[in-house]
């Protein structure tokens, strides 16, 4: 249809006005909203904490570009807790009582989060946390999890895993459970043993090692000797890699193997890690990329992580949980239309938030919602989701060695 000159000018004016309006909306104004948190920027936990730093920086930038929260710009007050929970506690007190930040945010890992939670509880601040591994320890009403483990992960996660295995080409009959005695790992491995027993799997080996163990040779040997169909490795950080190295040295490849919380990058590039299973709440593939904020975030993270020289610049559990936490807090503030912690908490408890991981709710025990952990596998040097079917892409299925 031919546009008349008048309507054309009108359209142009409308476009200009909306553009101007958009420009106005894109510049947040007023005193910044200060969000305070700590991260383990130095010390043994710093390897993973640096991912969280990058994610936070990305989110703050994006948010400020979009107009901030409640029209105000965001400012992140970040401190280094040096991987020490007692320092984390002190710093959170500083953030609340001296720096007087408006909102608190999560530190990295269970120990520090517990410290932060204690402080948050004393000052009635809401705390959205992203890497808390032991849901049963959450006793604070205004703490909200971004990592969707569900409130009973020791039960639900192994069930998901064994469902995946049962639907695979070679459902295992015998299982070896080897685990680190690290707090957030151990109870999960105990749960896995229970579930395995209930499902009629025979446990041919159970081993625990000291967190900090360097020599995995004997452990690898015992696994090989026990000849299990499936190995459940309760490993965190490097331990999975060390065990795989040790198994390679004795020329042993488990028929099927699972690693609970591996360090993201190193495992996927290891040739021996072929067909290793793990859990995830997000991967850089469909259908996850359709979730709120996913596509942009993935791109930005890749850029920043590469610039920061991280060996693996892809988004996985840590980065995804971190970004989700920001999304949750943002939704809470927007929903409550204020910075009042009680209002934010009340809103979150009664609403669903659309995040990277999909829609999340917070009305279960410890404010947990469903267990959203999916099973992923290293295939051709990439993490690929293989279970549940609804979350797979391109017809990916579970492979066996």
């Amino acid at each position, binding site marked *: 249809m031919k546009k008349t000159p008048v309507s054309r000018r009108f359209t142009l004016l409308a476009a200009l006005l909306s553009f101007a309006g958009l420009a106005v909306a894109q510049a947040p104004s007023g005193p910044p909203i200060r969000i305070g948190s700590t991260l383990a920027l*130095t*010390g*043994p*936990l*710093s*390897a993973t*904490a*640096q991912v969280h730093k990058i994610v936070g920086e990305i989110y703050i930038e994006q948010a400020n570009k979009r107009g901030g929260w409640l029209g105000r710009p965001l400012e992140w007050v970040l401190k280094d807790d040096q*991987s020490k929970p007692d320092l984390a506690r002190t710093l959170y007190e500083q953030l609340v009582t001296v720096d007087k930040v408006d909102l608190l945010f999560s530190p990295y890992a269970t120990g520090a989060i517990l410290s932060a939670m204690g402080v948050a509880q004393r000052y009635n601040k809401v705390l959205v946390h992203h890497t808390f591994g032991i849901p049963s320890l959450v006793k604070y009403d205004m703490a909200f999890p971004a990592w969707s483990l569900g409130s009973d992960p020791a039960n639900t996660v192994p069930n998901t895993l064994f469902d995946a295995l049962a639907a695979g080409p070679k459902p295992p009959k015998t299982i070896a459970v080897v685990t680190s*005695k690290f707090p957030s790992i151990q109870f999960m491995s105990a749960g896995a043993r229970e579930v395995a027993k209930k499902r009629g799997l025979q446990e041919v080996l*159970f*081993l*625990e*090692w*000291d967190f*900090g*163990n*360097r*020599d995995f*040779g*004997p*452990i690898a*040997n*015992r696994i090989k*000797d026990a000849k299990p169909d499936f190995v459940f490795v309760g490993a965190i*950080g*490097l331990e999975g*890699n*060390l065990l795989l*190295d*040790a198994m*390679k*040295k*004795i*020329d042993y490849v488990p028929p099927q193997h699972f690693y609970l919380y591996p*360090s993201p*990058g*190193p495992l996927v*590039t*290891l040739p021996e890690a072929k067909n290793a299973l793990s859990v995830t709440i997000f991967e850089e593939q469909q259908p996850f990329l359709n979730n709120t904020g996913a596509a942009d975030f993935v791109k930005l993270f890749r850029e920043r992580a590469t610039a*920061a*020289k*991280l*060996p*693996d610049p892809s988004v996985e559990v840590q980065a995804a949980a971190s970004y989700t936490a920001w999304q949750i807090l943002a939704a809470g503030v927007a929903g409550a239309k204020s910075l009042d912690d009680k209002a934010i908490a009340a809103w979150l408890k009664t609403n669903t938030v659309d995040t990277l991981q999909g829609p999340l709710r917070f009305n279960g025990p410890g404010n947990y919602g469903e267990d959203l952990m999916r099973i992923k596998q290293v295939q051709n040097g990439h993490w690929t989701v293989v279970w549940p079917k609804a979350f797979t892409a391109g017809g990916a299925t579970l492979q066996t060695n």
Partner: protein
Amino acid sequence: MSGFTMPSATLLAQSILSGVFVGALYGLLGLGLSLSWGLLRLINLAHFAFAFLAAYLCYQMAQMGVDPLLSLGLIVPLFFAIGAGLHWGMMKFQITPFNSLLVTFGLTGIVEALIQTIWTADFRKLESSYGEHNFKVAGLYVPLPELITLGLAVSLSFVVWAVLRYTDLGKALRASAEDSAVAAAFGINEKRNALLLAGTCSALASIAGVCLALGFTLAPSQIYAWIGVVFAAVMLGGLGRALAPLIAGIVIGVSEAVTMAVTAPSWAPLVSFTLLIAILLFRPGRAA
């Protein structure tokens, strides 16, 4: 916790072998530490930082295509110079043994920060062709990187032992350690010998670092993971000795490995450290 399970002979043997390999690395790391503590009267915590720095350099060069063992050609002289330089500084300021602990602790923090700045805190693994080779001897697996580590540890320990025992330099070093004033009166050039020894200790640390890079995944915070057990090997063997750290390291490594083979691995530290305590309490009157 599982009780005792009788392992198969192969399992036991393989585990013992594994313990020998990791113990050899403890010994190699401990060699330089023992010499500098015993003969130079300096407790060098930075020894571990140097080992890791060397490991990272080896990794970096491997990324650029240099064979890890060839990289020793650059790394060893570099760390020799660093070690001698550090000792020159210590001598100039007349640092006492326990103060050297403080100074080297500070140095370790600096090196760790340096490593983290250049290579990030993330884990780095050196993938080399050596990792691909695995020999099978009498039904037991002998991976090449571990074999290299064992070989280097044993040969270096013997070389150092021979130097200390049979050469004039070695005797001079031992004399200076016992009574430096008297040794100097006999014409021993203590300063030059000390610099030589300090440089050698750091060079040994760097070789241990390359072995670390060949066999282990690296992270800056891992520096501290080795301190406890290597100090244990050094003190168990007695200071200022060449073969002792290796033997002590292997004893510790094997005792832990055997424990892990027959019972719950999480008890391993108990066995190795109790063994350590027992040996220290009952060994025939060797003065520290």
